[in-house]
């Protein structure tokens, strides 16, 4: 591949990365501004001394820049409750949440994609199509906290498919034991009906286009021609769009399953008004969302290089 052919792609990619960085800076500004305008601070409940008065706006800007400098060096301060460094805490818990998120995404895609393909090909008229569509609606309306209890009762308490508690040492962990929270999150928190609807509409739109008809007339594989436009792009689109929803749903599911992830830590931090911790978690979550979106853009550009030509 010559450089001249990948040059527009590279240019667009660099621009996308730059846009993502700009958004992350914006996120940090918002997080900092929200907490610096908050009444009181975590220490005001410990030290009953009267506040020294809010510093002037230039002081705030200087404070922000200092904070950003520390942030870029990986120093997010220490949790006001536990005293542990926030950066390490967030990295440690975010791995658990990442596992949960990716698993939930995989499960919801495993459910949404077959239903979408089935209803796109057979139409909505068949009884199976209707049953599956209604089921996706029910799942997307199911409250995760209650479904979590049902699953715990059925799979752990009643039938004992899974152990109730896993031993403390990592040696006897089995990743299979962590299937239940992933299952609940994948079923409940992704807006399954919305996913199916979007995937189906895109697939139907692409399958009705001229080049698909041409492919069918020539006798070549329709699937091969429809794959990129009708399947790959919508799937990456929906995956990127659902990352924030799954991260939000993870807060509830981690609470139900006592999962040592970021969402549970955020809940704890919100209760304790632990400012450094909640800042770190919010930034990390925003980073996840932006990475998902960047992935979508990369797939978009690689699959459809014309888009990068057009925008230049």
């Amino acid at each position, binding site marked *: 591949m010559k450089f001249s052919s990948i040059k527009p792609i590279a240019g667009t990619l660099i621009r996308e990365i730059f846009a993502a960085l700009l958004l992350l800076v914006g996120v940090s500004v918002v997080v900092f501004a929200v907490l610096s305008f908050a009444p009181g601070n975590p220490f005001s409940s410990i030290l009953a001394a009267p506040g020294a008065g809010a510093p002037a706006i230039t002081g705030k800007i200087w404070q922000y820049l200092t904070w950003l400098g520390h942030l870029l060096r990986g120093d997010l301060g220490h949790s006001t409750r536990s005293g542990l460094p926030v950066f390490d805490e967030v990295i440690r818990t975010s791995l658990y949440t990442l596992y949960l998120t990716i698993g939930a995404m995989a499960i919801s895609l495993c459910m949404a994609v077959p239903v979408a393909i089935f209803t796109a090909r057979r139409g909505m008229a068949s009884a199976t199509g209707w049953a599956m569509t209604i089921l996706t609606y029910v799942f997307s309306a199911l409250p995760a906290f209650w479904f979590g209890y049902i699953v715990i009762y059925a799979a752990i308490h009643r039938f004992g498919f899974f152990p109730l508690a896993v031993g403390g040492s990592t040696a006897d962990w089995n990743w299979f034991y962590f299937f239940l929270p992933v299952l609940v999150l994948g079923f409940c928190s992704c807006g399954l*009906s919305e996913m199916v609807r979007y995937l189906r509409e895109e697939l139907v739109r692409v399958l009705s286009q001229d080049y698909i008809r041409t492919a069918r007339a020539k006798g070549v594989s329709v699937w091969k021609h429809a794959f990129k436009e009708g399947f790959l792009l919508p799937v990456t689109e929906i995956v990127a769009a659902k990352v924030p929803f799954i991260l939000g749903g993870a807060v509830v599911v981690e609470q139900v399953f006592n999962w040592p992830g970021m969402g549970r830590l955020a809940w704890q931090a919100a209760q304790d008004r632990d400012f450094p911790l909640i800042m770190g978690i919010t930034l990390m979550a925003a980073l996840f969302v932006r990475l998902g979106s960047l992935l979508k853009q990369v797939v978009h550009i690689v699959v459809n290089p014309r888009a990068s030509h057009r925008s230049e």
Partner: protein
Amino acid sequence: MSIKMKVFRQHTLRVSDYSQVPIWRKAHPVDLACVCYGLAVVMMVIVSYASGMNGWFPFDPQAIQMDLLNALPNTEGHLLGTDFMGRDIFSRLILGIQAYFLPGLLAVGIALALGSICGLVSGYRGGRWDAAVTYAANLVDSFPRLVLILLMIAAFKPDIYIIMAVVGLTHAPTVTSMIKSKVIFLKQQNFIEAAVSLGLKNRIIIAKHILWYNCRALLIIQATLGMAEAILIETSLSYLGFGVQEPMPSWGNMVQSGANYFLQGHFWPSTAPALAILFTILGFHLLGDGLNNILERKQGR
């Protein structure tokens, strides 16, 4: 002349003017069923407020009955049983509707107002305005909703109206992008061009010809979907302990308080409100999608 006109008009009405056929006659029966179910769910709000004002509850929602804890449905006249303090679940479910309705309305109002203003500005003006609005929308989209709400709770206080304002803010980008694409589509249409060449003021074109005549269906649909999201957030937060606090019933804290007795085999006190949440969110989703199929498909024809 006038008689001729009249005959002509009747003829078109009966035979060929499809736009004169009422909209519910053109709709698919399944969509109509979805909308009817959704409207029934919306009606429950009126039932709740009416019975709240007139005291039409079968039992007092706050009356504690310590000799009848976690009762099954239909014991001693309790239609849906009692919770862990012996309070009547059915009455509390009815009263719990009020916990989500007004806050949800606030969220929907903020989302629609902010979303349509931003969408109109970026679609109608374009250029720098569009870039600014897109940046702001992407910025809001970068935060997972529940995490942003927890940030707000840590910063301010767990007040349901602050939370719902945040929910409205985070729903606004969806509305913005829809209104924006609609405005860009409408701007190229002949009737907007005609309105401009007739010398109509910009604000009249925007408010009347774009927003009122062509975006109201979209806004109604987004309102129902936004309400569904608000209910989900409200119940989740009540479950997490940040929403409506205990003596006042909300469906989320009813599930949460019942869940303590779940593994002892008392499923019912948490299942009843969970099913209420399920059927209500389902109703708002079906209402939105049904209205979408009925109102929006028509314009593509």
